[in-house]
């Protein structure tokens, strides 16, 4: 099979090729060992032939063309770890308010993750119409509410597990089990990145720690390690980025130069070996990243009004401190998008600093008390981020995705003041490039328990995201252990109803 994009892409790569490596790059296209080669292409379960990205091992992050004309080039995913309650945020149900305090029909027979149900409970936060569209959103997230007109809601989302770990795996990788490539890894595997001197895929963990599924949320699975998310945030730098203690910059630079000379000398005896060329290129890129990553994480040159807007200027109590820390991560996310990073995954909520609901959205027992902290922490910085992206024109090319591993029940748990897990009906929203807004698609039943209209799966969700990126989810696959693996497994359909008309 002759793939013309392949050739085009190589030319593209040559024009991108880094200082002094033109010769190396030229040699490398003679031999693409490992990632390309004369590979047998197999039909996937969907009966379509895979489209393999043409990856140059000397520069695996070079930008690559999508399958079709893309509607968005970058993705910013905002992930609320712990399962944010749709009942208390985006999913307005007058019937639930009316029947507040009454048993849910059939609820007595329903066993959810932690057990039996108490009565139906309306949200402790009042729903109000927001924006021009009048979308009903609660007082928990007023500033995000103000941006309702930018959002495209999926109210009929469904998952397939009600435990956090598998749930986060499912939402991040399309599989409930550990060890599958994350959506960001798939995206950068397919498309590379426009950000030359930065990682193609960045995960920004909450300052309080990592989500339940930890590094699996941004892992490469069985894709080459080149496509794993690099994790850092505004408070914690990339490991091993800094020059080792006690070394002068001069010695450090001279050492790298000596290393590269030694590698070049060695290469002379193995001309054309792309693996060796790739290593030389990787040290050059690493050196550039040592400058470019601190540059992007250094927020001190952000103007005061930006810090204020993101809530990153105030501290003094728990909420303000957390909001400021998350706000700085939001600013970092914007800067990464600005620099062309392909996939940015921003987390709100963590599991290290307290389990159930304390530092994440897992409000089983005391949802009011806990969300009264989480709401303000999330609201202002996320809203500022969305506005900032819009003002800077970045939403034209960036798809913003807001999601969580699943939703929560419209009832309180028996004997508790919080809600149990609910994978049968929850809300995600999209904004920016490629989607209709303001728009709402799908619906849960009268209480916000089960999705009943416009029911969408995580597979549909990702089929759609990939579609917006110009990728056919049935043809973006990777051969592993006998199977053409996909982000969407063997399922999924693009949710055409939510796509913006071009």
């Amino acid at each position, binding site marked *: 099979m002759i793939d013309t994009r392949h050739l085009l892409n190589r030319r593209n790569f040559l024009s991108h090729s880094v200082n002094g490596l033109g010769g190396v790059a030229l040699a490398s296209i*003679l031999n693409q*060992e*490992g990632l390309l080669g*004369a590979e047998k292409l*197999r039909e996937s*379960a969907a009966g379509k032939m895979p489209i393999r990205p043409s990856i140059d091992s000397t520069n*695996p992050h070079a930008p690559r063309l999508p399958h079709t004309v893309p509607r968005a080039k970058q993705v910013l995913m905002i992930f609320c770890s712990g399962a944010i309650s749709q009942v208390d945020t985006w999913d307005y149900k007058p019937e639930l308010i009316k029947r507040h305090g009454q048993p849910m029909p059939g609820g007595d027979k329903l*066993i*959810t*993750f932690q*057990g039996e149900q108490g009565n139906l409970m309306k949200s402790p936060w009042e729903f109000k119409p927001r924006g021009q569209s009048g979308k009903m959103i609660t007082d928990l997230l007023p500033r995000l509410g103000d941006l309702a007109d930018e959002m495209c809601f999926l109210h009929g989302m469904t998952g397939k*597990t*009600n*435990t*956090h770990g*598998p749930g*986060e795996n499912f939402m991040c990788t399309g599989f409930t*089990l*550990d060890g*599958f490539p994350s959506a960001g890894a798939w995206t950068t595997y397919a498309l590379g990145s426009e950000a030359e001197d930065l990682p193609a895929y960045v995960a920004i963990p909450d300052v309080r720690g*990592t989500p339940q*599924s930890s*590094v*699996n949320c941004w*892992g490469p*699975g*069985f*894709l*080459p*390690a*080149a496509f794993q998310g690099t994790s850092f945030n505004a408070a914690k730098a*990339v*490991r*091993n980025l800094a020059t*080792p203690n006690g070394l002068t910059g001069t*010695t450090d630079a*001279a*050492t790298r130069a*000596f*290393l590269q*000379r*030694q*590698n070049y*000398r*060695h290469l002379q005896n*193995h001309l*054309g*070996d792309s*693996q*060796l060329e790739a*290593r030389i290129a*990787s*040290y050059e890129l*690493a050196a550039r*990243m040592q400058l470019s990553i601190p540059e992007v994480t250094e927020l001190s040159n952000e103007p005061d009004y930006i810090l204020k807007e993101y809530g990153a200027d105030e501290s003094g109590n728990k909420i303000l401190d957390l909001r400021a820390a998350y706000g700085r991560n939001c600013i970092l996310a914007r800067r990464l998008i600005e620099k062309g990073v392909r996939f940015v995954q921003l987390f709100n909520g963590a599991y290290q600093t307290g*389990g159930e609901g304390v530092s994440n959205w897992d409000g089983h027992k005391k949802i009011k008390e806990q969300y009264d902290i989480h709401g303000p922490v999330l609201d202002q910085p996320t809203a500022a981020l969305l506005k900032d992206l819009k003002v800077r024109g970045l939403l034209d090319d960036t798809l913003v995705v807001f999601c969580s591993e699943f939703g929560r029940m419209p009832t309180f748990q028996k004997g508790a003041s919080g809600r149990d897990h609910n994978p049968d009906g929850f809300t995600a929203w999209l904004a920016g490039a490629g989607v209709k807004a303001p728009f709402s698609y799908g619906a849960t039943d009268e209480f916000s328990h089960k999705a009943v209209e416009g029911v969408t799966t995580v597979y549909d969700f990702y089929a759609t995201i990939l579609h917006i990126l110009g990728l056919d989810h049935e043809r973006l696959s990777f*051969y592993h*252990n*006998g*199977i053409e693996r996909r982000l969407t497994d063997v399922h999924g359909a693009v949710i055409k109803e939510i796509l913006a008309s071009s």
Partner: protein
Amino acid sequence: MLALSGNALAKKKKDVEPSNHWSFQPVAAEHRHGRVDAFLNEAMANKNLRPLGRAERRTLIRRAYLVMLGLPPSPEEVAQFLNDDSPQAWDRLVDRILASPHYGERMARHWLDLTRFAESNGFETNRERPSAWHFRDYVIESFNDDKPYDQFVKEHLAGDAMGADIGTGFLVAGPYDIVKSPDPNLTLMQRQDELADMINTTGTAFLGMTIGCARCHDHKFDPITQRDYYSMQAIFAGVKFGEREMKKEVTPNDTKKVAALRESLTVAERELEKLRSMAATNEKGLSVLRPAVNARLNTETFEATSAKFVRFTINKTNGAEPCLDELAVFNTRGGNVALAKAGAIATSSGNLPGYPIHQLAHLNDGKTGNQWSWISNQVGRGWVEIEFAKASLVERIEWSRDQTGRINDRLAIDYKIELSIDGKSWSLVASSNDREPFGGKADPNAFLAKLPAPEAKRASDLIAEIDLNRSRIAAMQNGVKAWVANFSKPGVTHRLHRGEPMAKREEVPPDALEVIGSLDLAMDAPEQTRRLALAEWIASEKNPLTARVAVNRLWQFVFGTGIVDTPSDLGTNGTLPTHPELLDWLADDFVKHGWSMKHTLRLLLNSNAFQRSSQPNSAAARIDASSRFFWRFPPRRLEAEAIRDGMLSVAGTLDRRMGGQGFHLFDVDRENVVHYHAKDETGPAEWRRMIYLFKIRQEQDAVFGSFDCPDGNQVIPTRSRSTTPLQALNLFNSRFTMQQAQKLAERLGAHADRVPQTYELLYNRPATSDERRDAEKFIGDHNFLAFCRAMLNTSEFLFIF
């Protein structure tokens, strides 16, 4: 749907047509050639490829060491080989390599990738499995012993039936979701996932078949039906996760040894007790109190009394419900008449519910430690009674809270012990009344201070002897605890429509893949029988897949790519073998040589193909860029583990101790959910070979994880070899590299010829004059440490050529 009776259905033919796919055909028994190179040369000639010449000898020894041992040779080993002029030099080198214990460590890394081995549960809780390392050691030892591959495979699936319990660590080496819920859907799905992991791993590792694809529907490409999948599931249906004591083969010799040890134990105990009473009588001749009770062991001696019952009543503890590890009653001949095995029966006032490790049966099971103990259901009180098989003349009682000495709570501090001949009238023989009051930190050896020096010395010798003999007895009687498969009676297995746990269809019998043959098992075949039958079926010379899959993997371990380059898929979706006749010859020869892996590896190492130069050649590359026809030896980057091991080795810091508990590269924060924080600094304790790393699922080592190191969640038959800037940052800037560079600098820095020595040590070759000039200049401008840091980062150090 009608359910057929067990046997009827078991014999019913499934809807599988015989397949004409190559890998399902019997392995050829007739061969056109009898040498690896003969097959390869013929294929090269057909492609107009000319093989390169033999590589230099120093390249060869380095290649052989890196490929087979995962460590570079020392300059002395290189010199020895270079100076060996005999025609057998290479054969001797191969023999030395295959005899090295590092061989097993290297091969085990490949095997543990294939068996998705890790030492934590995975998922969000990701708790550790502190005893899982026994399986890792078993794999290393099996390779080093050249255990026949068929036996090795059988032990993985049914080692419990073959005196090799540890092999079944394979079945449960995968991830395990311990987050349980009252929601029945979730529980069923979790179980389905566990079984799927066992089926997938068995299918890919041994058979090169993607059986897992048939979980929801018949396999799209291979002749594997959904019924096949659920028949496989029925084989594993009784397998459960957990830690357990491995079965200990107790030989008659062991029994004799235990009896002898017991006898000397009794003698020592008696003598010690005399010394104790001596201490209890102070210099004025007045009786003083006995030492306070302790958790580890309390001994009560009394006039020999005839009894059929003993009763131990607890009135107070140092906290919570009382716990007794073991209650032993000795007759005048030193035998424990309270043992369940001797026919004694225990009863109690009540038992703490819900803890399998705390049971009444553990009171007199002869096994010691908290996990074999009884706990009362009442706070601070409770009683136990043991009825002996027959009335006996008894004179000594031993009781303990935790004989291993680890746990000190729940200790009976106010108690009495009574004996009875009829179970009605009781006489008091011992109690806490004549003991020192319990002070929280009871020292069982406090009495020593009250003895004259010679007796005190004698008493402490006796205590040491008793401890040693006790641990010897325990070791001979209690098996070792390890993370291996647990077995239960399997329930009925149904085919599940679209793989949905709630959508049960017809019952299926335990069976293997229909396309290759049936196991002919009844629907209700016993649990172990099922696995044993599958094991025999897989590890059979008649199975067309097993030997082919195995030799193809060995080929891949040596040459980097298999003859089939989809080593876990020999189905129709896999690629065809580049050298089908060679593959069959190797498979046939492997079986004929007793499934000896060392035999086959020796064939490969002795081939010209292995000893060929790795130089690139543009003419040949145009025909065969990836060197699949072996006109050259294909170079490749070392794996994460071999890079780290190699750095330690050349820095002179490698701790070559084998086996045992692994080392940690994480600080572990053990909440309900376990968090792992990469250590910033490592020291000699972490400088063992990386196969001994305590392997945590998901979490990657902060330096070497980025070198495509698998995280134990997936079966990995072939490692990716990507090159990334993060690898460069880690290897160039990490504390680990700086430390090892420092050690390397210290090792060589004082030598006048330190530059050429570095080249010999890291590359196993002399430095060229160019290199030497450049290095000396660089060291002069900067320092030797900087040079060492650079050298540890070079491609030549990190690649097999």
